[in-house]
């Protein structure tokens, strides 16, 4: 595979701005080669009227949507700004509300379904707070955010209906061990 294709696929997957030096290192190339290839890619996108563009700031680059497409993305956001939540999202939110602080794998043990994208979207929407637990950047717990409490109109979690009773339900505390052995 060509170096250009490699760079664009890395930029797609990485998302955040990435240092040219980091790209150079992972691809085993000179930084100058990377810089030139990135410029060539961006010129190609422009010429082919692609929906992509590469932002360059100092020694960082990032693959983003072309500015001319901003309107479509804004429209999409308006569609995403639903006033109600899907049943799956409500389910996750209810687990977090009644059993916080709780880790992702605990939530998944209770639901029996992967929850990563729902949790990401709840965090992005500011409905739950993600708190780093151990400092290794890999274990987090989730809790209801202040704005969620505001939307729900409660001052503390204890004000949720049947909080004392539901938060102690044994099914919310499944044994971690009996699970994931596929």
């Amino acid at each position: 595979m060509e170096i250009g294709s490699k760079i664009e696929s890395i930029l797609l997957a990485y998302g955040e701005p990435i240092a040219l030096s980091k790209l150079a290192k992972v691809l085993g190339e000179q930084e100058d080669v990377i810089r030139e290839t990135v410029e060539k890619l961006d010129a190609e996108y422009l010429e082919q009227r692609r929906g992509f563009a590469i932002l360059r700031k100092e020694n960082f680059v990032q693959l983003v949507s072309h500015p001319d497409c901003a309107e479509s993305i804004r429209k999409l956001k308006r569609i995403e700004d639903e006033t109600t939540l899907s049943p799956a999202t409500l389910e996750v939110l209810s687990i977090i509300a009644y059993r916080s602080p709780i880790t992702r794998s605990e939530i998944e043990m209770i639901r029996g379904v992967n929850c990563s994208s729902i949790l990401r979207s709840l965090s992005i929407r500011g409905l739950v707070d993600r708190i780093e637990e151990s400092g290794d950047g890999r274990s987090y717990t989730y809790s209801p955010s202040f704005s969620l409490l505001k939307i729900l109109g409660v001052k503390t979690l204890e004000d949720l209906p049947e909080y004392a009773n539901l938060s102690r339900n044994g099914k919310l505390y499944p044994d971690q061990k009996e699970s994931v052995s596929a």
Partner: protein
Amino acid sequence: MYSIKLEQFEGPMDLLLQLIEKNELDITRVSLARVADQFIEYMESNHNLPLEQMADFLDTAARLLLLKSKALLPVLQFTEEEEEEIVDLEERLRLYALFKEKAMLLGGMAEEQRYMFSREAFVGLDKMFLPDPSMLRVLSSDLESALKKLLDTIPDPEKLKEKILRRTIRLEEKIKRLKELILQRTKFTFFEIIRDRRDHGEIVVSFLAILELVRQKHMTVRQEDNFGDMYVEKIVEGK
């Protein structure tokens, strides 16, 4: 009966498939009848089969015996449902063989690690593009009912275990009761034993019991016509 070395297997259908392959047979009704004894022998000699799987193995054994009794005694009348079970087992095993082969291909594809990566949602996007939570209308009672509904659908693991255990014991007990019944009598025919059967499972269980008693040299079986009734007789000690 000769013993056969088997690879690790992933359940009754896998065991059945491996027996067919080791005997160099194709997946047909006749082959299935031929490996029925080997299947049961393997099952009985393998006492560390996990309990949760025991019922599944017994279930497949029961279907195999139904098939075998049909092969030995074509005069036996089968209900439509029983006939279906025989056809089913053959078809299911064919499907299983196909998907087992594909499973290995898929495993190979995953091992090549040609993963495709996607971007996390809204990563690196400007705040103005992110969804706005202030539009949201959620009531605390919505959360309460969502949680209650979820808790309702989570099965109680203890109850599940009990259910599996009960199913296994039911089959095992049936076999045991029948063996005792047979041992009390010195002479009988297969048709007599199954005359009052309540369901198709009982033919199968009877067959299983007789087979085992013959193997343990408690009984002999004689068949006068090729596909006629079977006369079962107790072997008298010291004879």
